[in-house]
């Protein structure tokens, strides 16, 4: 811990905050201000038409007749009582097997998915990296850049300022000047992914939440996008990163959370948590 404090004072940005360790030796801890506080959060999804048993119309009618409430509705308890504190300058990784609640937790921190119980407190507005949902395939790349930027809350002036930067970064026009004026549905999947990333990464955020699939496109673009994420990370106060690539987590995050079926199983320095998680993943094979 003494090492940690020394290095934290030197670099001041990359401070290691091992919650569990620090809880034991409390007094005279020096840390930066918290930016995200998650207090015993539960998230429940309600899934309609999940087809309980025989999913036919007659069975649905039967359930209606027998007055069983809300036919075909199922509750999925995706996050079960997670608590944590993240501080300014931290990069926090999230690991866990598929369906363990990582993305759900991110969305709840961002305030996009209301928790069933518990609260999330944040400094400013945390933002999820990604604009895919706002884009329309039938529109040209050009109009999608504008639409995506406006959807992220930019003003029309900001969109004009950043437009050429976004197009250049995506490299869409490398081969043909006219590509950006074509409908996005005519793009190859790689090209579309590059444009989507370029739009999403055009804005800087206080608290940035990144969900997987960072590296899209060919190797040249992968390198560029990695650099861009590093920039965003440095500009952001706090970063949360969900990834199945443990190398990415090791390179980016000093602290890691391990979620398993909605429960926070471990929270600590990346090396320790990843070691435990990798052991666990091996055991499942």
């Amino acid at each position: 811990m003494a090492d940690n404090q020394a290095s934290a004072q030197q670099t001041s940005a990359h401070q290691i905050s091992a919650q569990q360790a620090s809880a034991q030796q409390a007094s005279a801890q020096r840390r930066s201000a918290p930016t995200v506080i998650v207090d015993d959060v539960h998230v429940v999804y309600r899934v309609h038409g999940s087809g309980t048993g025989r999913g036919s119309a007659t069975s649905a009618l039967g359930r209606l007749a027998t007055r069983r409430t809300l036919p075909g509705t199922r509750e999925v308890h995706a996050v079960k009582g997670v608590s944590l504190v993240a501080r300014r300058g931290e990069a926090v990784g999230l690991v866990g097997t598929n369906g363990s609640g990582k993305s759900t937790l991110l969305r709840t921190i961002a305030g996009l998915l209301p928790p069933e119980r518990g609260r999330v407190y944040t400094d400013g507005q945390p933002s999820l990296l990604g604009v895919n949902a706002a884009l329309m395939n039938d529109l040209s790349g050009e109009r999608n850049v504008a639409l995506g930027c406006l959807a992220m809350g930019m003003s029309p002036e900001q969109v004009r300022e950043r437009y050429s930067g976004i197009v250049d970064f995506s490299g869409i026009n490398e081969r043909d000047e006219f590509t950006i004026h074509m409908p996005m549905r005519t793009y190859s999947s790689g090209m579309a992914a590059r444009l989507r990333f370029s739009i999403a990464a055009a804005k800087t955020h206080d608290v940035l939440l990144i969900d997987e699939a960072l590296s899209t496109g060919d190797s040249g673009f992968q390198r560029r996008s990695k650099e861009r994420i590093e920039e965003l990370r440095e500009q952001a106060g706090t970063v949360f990163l969900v990834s199945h690539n443990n190398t990415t987590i090791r390179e980016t995050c000093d602290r890691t959370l391990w979620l398993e079926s909605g429960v926070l199983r471990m929270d600590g320095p990346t090396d320790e948590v990843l070691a435990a998680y990798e052991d666990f993943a091996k055991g499942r094979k």
Partner: protein
Amino acid sequence: MSHPGIRTSPPSGVLLDTGDEDDLPPHLLAARYGLEVSGARPSLPAYTRQVWFRRHFVTAYATARLTSMYANARLGQLWQVMTPLLNAGVYYLIFGVLMGTRHTVTNFIPYLCTGVFVYSFTQASVLAGTRAVQGNLSLIRALHFPRACLPVALTLNQLQQTLFSTGVLAVIVLAFGEPLTVRWLLVPPVLVAQTLFNMGLALAMARVGAKYTDAAQLVPFVTRTWLYFSGVFYNLTTLTKHAPGWAGTLLEANPAHVYITLMRYALMRSVPASNLPPHVWVLAIGWALVIGIGGYVYFWQAEEEYGRG
């Protein structure tokens, strides 16, 4: 490392004595650093400011929907004009030719087209509003913006289409011998009032549709029933003549009927002012304000819930 977004807490470089924090309950820790509940509903004035701040997104989204609507059709944007024309043709065939309504109303075709186009603006707004939240869940779960932007944008999208059909309507009305009069100046105010009314209804239905997903299946039947009560194909006075007094008043106060009647009055000289129900302008503006503001407030009250789905 400091950047403009930081408001409440010290910049990241500053380390604080936080030794006593580990025992602090989360809500007190949050209060100490001025952290706010994520995804909480803002006050109504703050919410309205947010919507206003996003007005460029709203218009861009509405226009994008309009452009992408016929993007795959070979005739493309020509369908903006063809769709209302074909609609008018179908109704003429059924009500004008088959059922012979055309003999009871003077200049039936402009009369019918005005009714159809004005009503379909309200109908389409209600339908689009009902699906506004449910159909855009992925957008709602990905980005921050006041959710009222979606129903508002979809209503504006319908308004854009209505402007196309109003253009078509003007041509039809003139082609059937109605003269261009000063009364045409009443068209914009009627459209504004109707848009406000539709927006409020779309907002209210968006909240209902978000909570009860079956509403999207049910609403088409409701709007179709409403259509037959609104005097779209026939003169409503043939109904109100024989109806008891309260029912007649109720039929005449029907907002869809109010906007249709006003639009007919504005466009057609053959519709005299004596055809207008009493207090028609009070009704038109009253409906717009009551439903417009009421729907907005009703939608805002569930703002933090819309991501749940």
